[in-house]
């Protein structure tokens, strides 16, 4: 038999031997090891499966499902039917680590059953099997039970997005004042890193470019809920805008919503922007505080208004939901005023308020509205 024939036979024999490999170990890491008693909890698990091959070939590692157990490892609490699988071609003698990411929902049912049985933890077991050798390895993830709030690393449970006028889709006149708001429900306390990003015309007429308006690293104290407010949104150019909150840390396990608004030109009937001078933002209000503004032609009276909540500055309506808690009207011959003690008596000490000025003509039409500023009383 020639050497060439021997070589062909040897190659044929080697190729016909199936891969021989084994799973050496499985470990699990998670971004959150707490399961809430009052909500189903979604966590990310990174499974790391170490394997070793005796000869070369295609290896498949698979886990058909996962099981929730009580810490006694006897009481089964539930199952997850997520199929996890990964293929890898290995060379002879090669060791490798396969990483499989799982998005796991821990049902409230599982957490509640464990708590009712008197356990403070839940175990999540997964067994991985390799093909073709069918060696197996099992790993256990320990999950602590938690109530609605907890200390420790911050976790974002819910984000509700809306504009400061309470709407989710809105249009506003050019040069109006609008902010985006994100109501975050969270557990624990810690650092949140986020950016408010805006896509504005002209990019929204073609390929959308999101630009950070502000990037913040903010420490959130224990409180369970926080409202993040964007800077004043741009409204100088007509057209379509998108605004989103980009949470860089902690990374939420869900897709963040995007708000959209449209800026339309001011019509001649809509109130114009009224420029104000003093007092500055966050000024302390007293009888000595002087309110000043720029004159508006055709105005008959000016009204300085104080609100408990930030008013919607895009329009004036007598039916507006937020009514001023106090204010003063003066004839248009004046461009400054101070409140007297009677007006301040409607306010409560220690409260933050918002003020603005409106200009009204002879017929009762609101000609101009200023942007609002905060006041401390």
């Amino acid at each position, binding site marked *: 038999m020639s050497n060439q024939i021997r070589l062909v036979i040897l190659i044929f024999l080697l190729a016909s031997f199936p891969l021989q490999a084994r799973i050496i170990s499985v470990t699990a890491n998670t971004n959150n090891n707490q399961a809430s008693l009052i909500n189903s909890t979604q966590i990310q698990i990174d499974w790391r499966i170490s394997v070793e091959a005796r000869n070369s070939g295609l290896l498949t590692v698979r886990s058909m499902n996962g099981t929730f157990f009580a810490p006694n490892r006897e009481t089964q609490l539930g199952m997850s039917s997520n199929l996890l699988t990964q293929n890898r071609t290995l060379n002879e003698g090669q060791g490798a680590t396969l990483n499989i990411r799982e998005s796991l929902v821990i049902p409230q049912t599982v957490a509640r059953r464990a708590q009712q049985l008197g356990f403070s933890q839940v175990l999540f077991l997964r067994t991985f099997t390799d093909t073709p050798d069918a060696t197996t390895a099992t790993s256990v993830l320990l999950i602590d039970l938690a109530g609605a709030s907890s200390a420790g690393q911050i976790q974002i449970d819910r984000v509700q997005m809306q504009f400061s006028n309470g709407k989710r*889709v809105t249009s506003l006149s050019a040069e109006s004042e609008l902010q985006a708001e994100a109501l975050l429900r969270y557990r624990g306390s810690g650092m949140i890193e986020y950016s408010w990003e805006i896509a504005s015309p002209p990019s929204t007429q073609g390929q959308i470019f999101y630009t950070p308006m502000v990037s913040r690293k*903010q420490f959130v104290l224990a409180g369970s809920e926080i409202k993040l407010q964007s800077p004043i949104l741009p409204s100088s150019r*007509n057209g379509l805008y998108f605004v989103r909150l980009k949470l860089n840390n902690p990374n939420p396990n869900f897709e963040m919503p995007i708000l959209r608004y449209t800026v*339309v030109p001011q019509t001649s*009937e809509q109130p114009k922007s009224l420029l104000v001078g003093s007092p500055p*933002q966050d000024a302390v209000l007293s009888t000595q505080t002087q309110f000043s503004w720029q004159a508006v032609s055709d105005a008959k009276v000016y009204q300085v208004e104080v609100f408990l909540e930030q008013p919607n500055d895009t329009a004036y309506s007598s039916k507006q939901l937020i009514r001023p808690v106090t204010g003063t009207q003066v004839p248009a011959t004046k461009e400054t005023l101070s409140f*007297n003690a009677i007006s*301040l008596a409607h306010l409560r000490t*220690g409260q933050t308020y918002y003020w603005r000025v409106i200009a009204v003509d002879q017929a009762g039409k609101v000609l101009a509205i200023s942007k609002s500023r905060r006041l401390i009383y």
Partner: protein
Amino acid sequence: MARPRFFAFITVAIFALCHTKTIANDGNSVDQQAHADDSTPLVIESGEMIEVSLPESLSSYSFENIILELDQINITELVELSEGSLSYQPTIQLDVGKHQLSATDIQSGEVIAEWIFEVRYSEISESSLAIDSQFIASQRIAEKNIGDPAPNRFHGQANSQVSFSHLSNRWQLEGAFDLYYDSIEENRFSERTIDNGEFLVSVSNQYAEAHIGHQVVGNGSFIMDNFSRRGVSVVGNMSSIESKVSGFSLSSNEIFGFGGGMGISDRRQRVDGMYFETSPVKEQPTLWTLSGTWIDGQINIEDEYVAQAFVGGGGSESQSWSITSESLLLEDKLHFVAEYARSEFDLDRTDGIEAEEDDAHKILLSYSDVIESDVTGSEIAWSVGGLKQRVGTFFQSIANQGLATDKDLFQINAAVQSESTALQFSTETHQDNVESIMVLPTIETTLNSLSLSWSPTLEDTTSWVGSPSFTLAIAEQDQSEIRTPENTPISVGNEVFSWQVSSNFAYEVNSWGINLSNTDFIDRTGLQNDSNTLGVSLFSNLVFDETASVSASIGIDEIDDLITQVSSKSINYALQTYVSIIPNELDLSFDYSINQNETSDLLINGNNTSINFVLNWKIREQAVNQFGIDLSLSSAYNDFDDKLMTLNSLESHQTFLTITATLPSRLGNSE
């Protein structure tokens, strides 16, 4: 004779001219009629002055010492006083409903006379329709690196804001909605080419209201707060007994567009309920207000504007109710609020676990007053208050999903304000695991905060500081695990100390400010790394005779990990300018921003530069029922520079020629 537009459709009826808080000079309370005959409503034609007869008790007062307020707005300078009566021409449209006119002695602060009157719908008919439309057509004429495949070169957009009203026979119908069109599918908020955003249509008279569309029902409570949804509500107003009752059916999820209909056809995504509010003491409604809410609903989380972790496959179901008592006592100085709520919530109807029942309650008490300082002679306003609140572990309501549950809170706060200085202090303790569930840790958190604000009154406000204001805020938090469940190796404990200094300076039309903040975090158990965070921000807004404006800001945030010694920094620079080259014809706007992010461990190091510029030519000025046309040349430039992975760097730009047509349409008639 043409009537002023704002008053064309209302008549003003003053029919409850009795005042019940009249106090004579000797301090004894007396009831006195302000009008000779209060049994006959005084009807004032629209546009006419409000005139009331003055009671005899006012004859002893010098009118220079009286402040007249309409709905708490000081109107003294616009009121005309004559012997025996006062008259006022309302400068702003008064809403339908009750209004209050009061006369207060400026020296003593006592209310001398008070008139309650009601504005009613008139029998005058009037209809109006307003449609503000905008049509935008743009063509991309140049680009670089804008993705593959690139968006269509032509982009069409249109939107209309529609509002209408009809007033007839003491009834009012009004409504508003938006319409949107976008030729690019990805830009739409629904699958429809043309769709509407939010809408609201209301029909009302003095006794009842009906609303269809996006609305907020009732006041905030444990079970319903910030719950703006599409649906239907009917409100009955019983002004004779100071009461209001509302029945509603709202979608539990946020719905937009034509597709959702009324939003209430699907029982699995609907909240039904009732709300009532009554003030039993008619003479002084704020003395005691009682309100209650009951809701019954189901929800399947499919809300596009709420992001959250998976809740449950079968949808949730809940019944809950709340009752609130609120009082303003001792001349409104003492504020008392008590609320009790109960919920029955089934997170997942298919999981075999029965609905959880739990409750929540709160008591809020605060007192505020003004005293005169013996030292300076100035007035000092002060307040002190307390809040005790407990929300059960399993308390949940579909209509208030943001509520922080499983928390027992006790808070005390105090505030003092004198002339230009204000001091606020609060201390609170909250504890979780309120049901004392053995397997859960119990964590106690104390939070103390102090805020000092100062706004000096300067005689010369033209100097470089203008009108300034300064604030120093300090907060301190301590968290500790006061009970650790068995088999849990780590107990939690950390401390946070933060301070913030902010200053703002305002001028005739311009303003600027600077803020500094710092936070120290110390973890006593090593669960998280200790850190220090520093923030600096600077902003300015400048306006030049309405022909140009410049806004500039810089924001720097830096966090140092004190364990790993890794620091992370982000810096934002932003500049927005507007120049009117030819007034009302040609203007230019230019935005420039840079966002820098870097970490000392060299895992992140990148800059993002963005430039937008628009040159806009107003070819034809818009007017009512007349098209306005603008032509603009605009460009957007974006440069992402990844200094570590240069392959990620991308410089792109796109330039557009855009024509915009606007049409404000108005239709209206009155008879």
